[in-house]
Structure formats: C-alpha cells, structure tokens
C-alpha cells in the first residue's frame, strides 16, 4: 500500500505570543484526492497550511507528505512536494516578469537551461497563460495573476497543491476559468476556502476545521446539507443555494 499524499497526526501549535491556534489536528488525504478545507475566519486554516511545508514547526504531532516526515533535514524535499498558492497573488509574484516568477521555484530546486524553460512553459500552459511569459505580473488582471500564481508552484511539480482562498475577489468568469484549470490538474488538491459552492464544485470531500480541531470530515454534499453543523461553525450557504440540487460533476 502506498503512503497517503498527506498525513497529519495530533498537530498542535501555539504562536510565539501564546495564542494557541491548533489543538491536535488529524487529517489524512490519499493521492489524487481533492479535498476542501472549510472553516470560518480564525479557525486555524492558514496556520495548518503553513505547517504543510514546514514554514511553521509543529508544537506537537507530525506532518507526513508522501510518507516523508517533515523535519529539518526533509524540509527542502517537502517544499518541493507541497505547492502552496497564497491568497494574494501580489505576495506570490514578486519578480519583474511572469517567466522569472514561474522559474523561481524550479530554479531553487536546481533546474537550469532547457529543463527549466520546459518546466516554465509546461506550467504556464497548464493554467492557460502561455502568451504572458514576458509580461510584468502587475500588468495582469487579478484572475490572470492568480492563475500565474498557480503556475509558480505547478512548475515545481508538486504532489499536493494547496490553494488558500483562491476565489477571493474574483469576478464570476475568472472564478470559472480558475475552476476549469484546477479540474484539469493531476496533483492532490487541498482547497482552503469558505466559498462553499466552489468547494462543492471541485472537491468530493470536505474537512471542516474550527477552533483548531477537525469538527467534521465527509462528502462535501452531505456536509453542506447539514444546516445545524454549518450554523454551529459560522458557515452559510449563499441565498437560495441548495447543495442537493447541484448536479454531480
């Protein structure tokens, strides 16, 4: 049996100022799964995400990515395996051209020359931004920047793609373009969001995090149909949205 793509066990973490954000999180994601991580603001979603590639070091518990336990000597390997796309593309895209930004990750992994160019071209093609390689990121629309931000981690060929609030501030067309891109990707996907219809559209399974623990884990449609559960954790479906009437993808 192959190791799961991601295995988090008993993960607890307190910030240096003493604020405890995670109280023992358990999460197992198999290879190729698409999982939504739901939760209200302040639930600990981003703190959890920052543990997945060793930005934060667990106070207690373990994080395993593809069977490799996150530790000082494996952090480089784990960062290649876990690609995080942050919420604000302006935080992610910091170089003068799209090409350089998409090349930054694989170049840090040691790729050079034709291999590097091939990785960049492939990643840009995956998000439908081939024609924009030599443009400065700040001249692109928000939707385009977000797709380029996805390309900057795809070029590292991650095993798991983690997206933090990918739909925030996007117009409906950009939102749909992004979901088309995401549905076409191979890697295991962890989608951090409180955009519940988007979670239903992309992820068959959802995990609900609140107060630093996993409070529910199951099929997205079931989870979203449980009004009492959603209400208890400050999540609400958009007006008139009925998850049971959304056709399966």
């Amino acid at each position, binding site marked *: 049996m192959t190791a799961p793509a991601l295995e988090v066990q008993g993960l607890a973490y307190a910030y240096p100022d003493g604020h405890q954000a995670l109280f023992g999180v358990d999460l197992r994601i198999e290879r190729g799964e698409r999982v939504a991580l739901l939760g209200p603001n302040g639930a600990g979603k981003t703190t959890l995400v920052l543990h997945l590639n060793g930005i934060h070091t667990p106070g207690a518990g373990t994080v395993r990515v593809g069977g490799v336990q996150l530790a000082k000597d494996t952090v*480089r390997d784990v*960062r290649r395996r876990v690609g995080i796309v942050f919420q604000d593309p302006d935080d992610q895209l910091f170089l003068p051209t799209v090409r350089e930004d998409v090349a930054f990750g694989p170049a840090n992994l040691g790729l050079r020359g034709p291999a590097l160019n091939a990785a960049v071209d492939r990643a840009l093609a995956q998000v439908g931004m081939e024609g924009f390689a030599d443009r400065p990121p700040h001249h692109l629309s928000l939707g385009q920047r977000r797709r380029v931000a996805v390309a900057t981690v795809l070029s590292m060929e991650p095993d798991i793609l983690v997206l933090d609030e990918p739909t925030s501030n996007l117009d409906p067309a950009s939102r749909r373009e992004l979901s088309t891109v995401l549905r076409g990707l191979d890697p295991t996907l962890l989608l951090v969001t409180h955009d519940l219809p988007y979670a239903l559209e992309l992820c068959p399974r959802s995990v609900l995090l609140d107060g630093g623990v996993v409070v529910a884990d199951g099929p997205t449609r079931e989870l979203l149909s449980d009004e009492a559960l959603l209400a208890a954790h400050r999540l609400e479906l958009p007006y008139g949205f009925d998850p049971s009437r959304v056709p399966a993808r």
Partner: protein
Amino acid sequence: MSAGHGSAGLYRAGHSALHRLPAQCKIAAHLAFVLVVVCTPRETFWPYAAYALLLAAVAAVARVPAGFVARRLVIEVPFVLFALALPFLAHGPRVDVLGVGLSESGLWSAWGILAKATLGVIASVLLAATTSQRDLLLGLERLGMPRTIVQIASFMLRYADVIAGESERMRIARESRGFTPRHLGHLPVVAKSAGALFIRSYERGERVHLAMLSRGYDGAMPRLDSSATPASAWATAALLPLLASVALALAWAGR
C-alpha cells in the same frame, strides 16, 4: 490607479542598435562619458558643444526625439535654480552684465554646473530611454553590483506600484468620509495613514518572504544568467566615451 504605468515614462520601447546593446555596456559607457564631461575645464567652451553633438548623434541612433528628452530634463530644474543664484551670491570681483553687478567666479560656476549637469542628465535620459528598468538592474548586477542591492532595487520596482495603489485607496477612503487635508492641523491624520501604510507594507514583506520560502528560497536568488557579453558590444558602447575623451584631451592640450 495606473498599476505599473507610472514608471513607464522613462523607457521608450524600440529596436534601435542602442536598445539592443547589453545594459552593462551602456551603463559603463554612460559612467565613463559623465566622468569625461566632469573633467573638462569650464574655461574652454567648444568641447561642450562636441559632447552635445555626440549625444545628439546617440539620440538619433536610438530614435529618441528631442522633445522626449527635453520634457524629462525638467528634473534638473532645482539645480538650474541653484546655478542661477550663484552669480548673485558668490563673492569676488564683479562684472557688469546689463547693468547688474554679478560675481565673476559665480558666473563661471553657474556655467560649469549648468553645462555639466545638463549633459549628464541628457546622457542619463538616453540610457533610461533605451534600457528597461529590469535590464538596468541586470546590467548593474553583471557589472558586479552586490546581488543584495540588486534584489532590494528589484523589489522596490515590483512593489512601488502596489504600495502606491494601496496609498491611493486609503486616500480615496479618507476623502469619501469627508476628509480633505487643508491645513497643517490635518497633518496627524495623513501621518497616521502613512504609519498604517508602513505596517501594511512591512506585513506584505513578511508574506512575500513566506511565499518565497514555500518555493524553496534559501537566502540566495538562483543565478540564471550566464551568457558572456560579446567584445563587439563593449567596443560599440566605448565609442561615445572614447570620442568624448579625444575632445577632453584636446581641450587640456590647448590650454
């Protein structure tokens, strides 16, 4: 908000021979030319005319129109004002110009500053008009500028517009709530906005760093560029300072 377009004012896209020259050659040639100009004795006038002609030739090769350069010379105005004040303020023997007694040494200083500064600014405008900001930084890096400084400068270029946009949104939000700065008493509000902007930018810096770490950044930018500069490019770029230094040599010889 004109995201990213504010800085486009100096660069003029084109495909001239000057545009194609590697940035490091142009930067070195520019520096050498300015040094030659600064070393020229101000008592001899003709070399300055020669330098101006050389720059006109460079502008013609780069297809940069005179009006484009002239508009960007405005940056020199504070220095011009300073230079114009010198004949009135300097001490020493006076000469009569149109009935006004002006300091002779002040007049020479004013001429020297005006001529040398104008030539330097024109050369800089031509460099900036034919070299994108990005290439300027790459050129400086290839000339041996410490990579940390180059990184800081490129972050500045990348985020100047983002931060200016943020500041503009804060201003609009202030004014939407009826605030218009009219007198010094309003300064604390503006100062607090500046403080908030500083903290936001600082936090953004931290988030950018996190995102860089997530992609394997370990403190050094990956070095991607390894191509050597062809000797012919250096030779072409050297033409300007070489011709100028011939004029310089003649000027000193003729004294």
